[in-house]
């Protein structure tokens, strides 16, 4: 296993797109959080009663301990950035036929799929690290003295972010793995990510008698790991609290769903001509 990771690191560390992706993540994560921080500032900064109430009611969402949740939620929107990389990594293997060369050189087919699983895991870990750093910087920056002592209260959002990223990047991987062409796979992923799933979620929620089904759509199942941040959610406390309670079950659902994706990849690769 360690050897597989070592070999994948040989492939990744000199791949320019990998560092570009990290650079873009390094810009977008702080960027989107700064943007929402400024929106919150505008909402709560008014001299009127509403602003003051909001501030007192929920506190600064970018201060500890809520920073982990808020930064996680806003950063997770940008999963498409590492998704591009994941799709490129697998489609490159097909384009340059290095996937078959790896087998010719002595890997089993399972080892190849495992190596790609590790790639996705490595990328998910890097974006989780980026999220952790951004959350730490925001948290310490916006917390009061007392708030800072509460920095370790919601650390569960780090593994939740990792699981969510891994699950959603696994979907991107599956598309690249099956479709083989990066642009088509990427187009389908973005179209599904931005339009299709949102449409189906709204349809199930508002037009059918089984709105809960929406929670089990491929991206939604792991989206529920980091529900909308408190300052967006507290306007409806009941829904917000329910979404926090649902996290535990969604950890299980996400694990099952993601395991299913990888099982499919292993199965397909065993049957295929390369």
């Amino acid at each position, binding site marked *: 296993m360690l*050897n597989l990771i*070592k*070999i994948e690191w*040989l*492939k990744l560390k*000199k*791949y*320019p797109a990998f560092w570009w992706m990290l650079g873009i993540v390094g810009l977008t994560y702080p960027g989107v959080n700064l943007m929402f921080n400024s929106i919150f500032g505008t909402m709560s900064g008014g001299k009127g009663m509403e602003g003051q109430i909001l501030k007192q009611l929920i506190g600064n969402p970018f201060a500890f301990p809520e920073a982990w949740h808020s930064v996680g939620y806003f950063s997770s929107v940008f999963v498409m950035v590492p998704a591009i990389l994941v799709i490129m990594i697998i489609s*490159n293997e097909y384009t*340059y*036929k*290095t996937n*078959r*060369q*790896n*087998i*010719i*050189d*002595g*890997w*089993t087919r399972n*080892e190849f799929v495992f190596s790609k699983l590790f790639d996705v895991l490595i990328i998910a870990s890097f974006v989780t690290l980026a999220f952790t750093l951004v959350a730490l910087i925001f948290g310490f920056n916006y917390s009061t003295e007392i708030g800072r002592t509460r920095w370790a209260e919601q650390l569960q959002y780090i593994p939740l972010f990792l699981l969510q990223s891994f699950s959603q990047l696994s979907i991107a991987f599956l598309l690249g793995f099956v479709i083989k062409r990066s642009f088509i796979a990427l187009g389908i992923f973005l179209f599904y990510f931005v339009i299709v799933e949102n449409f189906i979620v709204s349809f199930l929620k508002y037009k059918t008698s089984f709105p809960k089904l929406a929670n089990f759509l491929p991206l939604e199942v792991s989206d529920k790991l980091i529900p909308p941040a408190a300052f967006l959610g507290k306007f409806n406390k009941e829904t917000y609290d329910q979404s926090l309670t649902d996290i535990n079950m969604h950890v299980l659902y996400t694990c099952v769903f993601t395991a299913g994706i990888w099982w499919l990849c292993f199965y397909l690769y065993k*049957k*295929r*001509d*390369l």
Partner: protein
Amino acid sequence: MSSTVLSIQNLAKNYGSIKALDGISYEVPKGSVFGILGPNGSGKTTTLGIILDVLKSNAGTFEWFGKPSGPNTRKQIGSLLETPNFYHYLSAIDNLKITQAISGRGTEKDIEEVLEIVNLLQRKKSKFSTYSLGMKQRLAIGAALLGNPDVLVFDEPTNGLDPVGIAEIRELIKKLSQQGKTIIMASHLLDEVEKVCTHVAIMKKGKLITAGAVDEVLVNEDIVQFGATEAGKLFNILQNFPASTKIEMVDNFVQLHFLLGTAQLDQLNKYCFDQGIILNHLSLKRKSLETKFFELTSN
């Protein structure tokens, strides 16, 4: 240890209704340079793809070193299948590090050595994407040579090389063969096979036409063509000529076959004259490998 490196039994592969391989069987002896020869689409690469486990056969079996194939057998074989397959953004060195790490063949020091053998040492740090077609091909051969494996599989090894490169690869293959390596090589270039192979399998449309030692399969011969006014009488007297292997009438000429390099026209002319026949036509035709190949692969 077994004297057979690779044994193929009734291997078949279909792409839909098309039979890319139709039940082929042969054995590759240890230490041979085994050429798989055939026109485009005859199933050469499909055969190699199956024995290297990247394609799934529909029927039949094969064994490497007397054992069923697996990752450990593949690690012992240096292979170049169809095209040079490397990470385009990595240098030659980094690409070979991956080959080395996966196969376990060779060391980092060996990487420099094989790059020297294939004349890429000066460009070792250039990205693969900047290489010419010939350089890419040479890197693929270098990767196959890494760790000095006893068995090499080359699919069209001289593809994309210039004449000097082709000659170099030929010399390399001969040298490797002298070292006792077994080389399995697919090619559609008859000349290449004739110059380096000890054994050959000839394929056509997924079927094996023949397989065996080159001398047996591709017997080259001298053909002498005779013409005389009395063709029938000429035929009769030449029938008794010693050392000929075959006699036939073609377009009113008599053709006598000899082993390669053994026909001597002056002796033949004298023989006919002594038997009372005055020849009006006498010529020597060398049957090329190409003719033989067309003969074997035509219906």
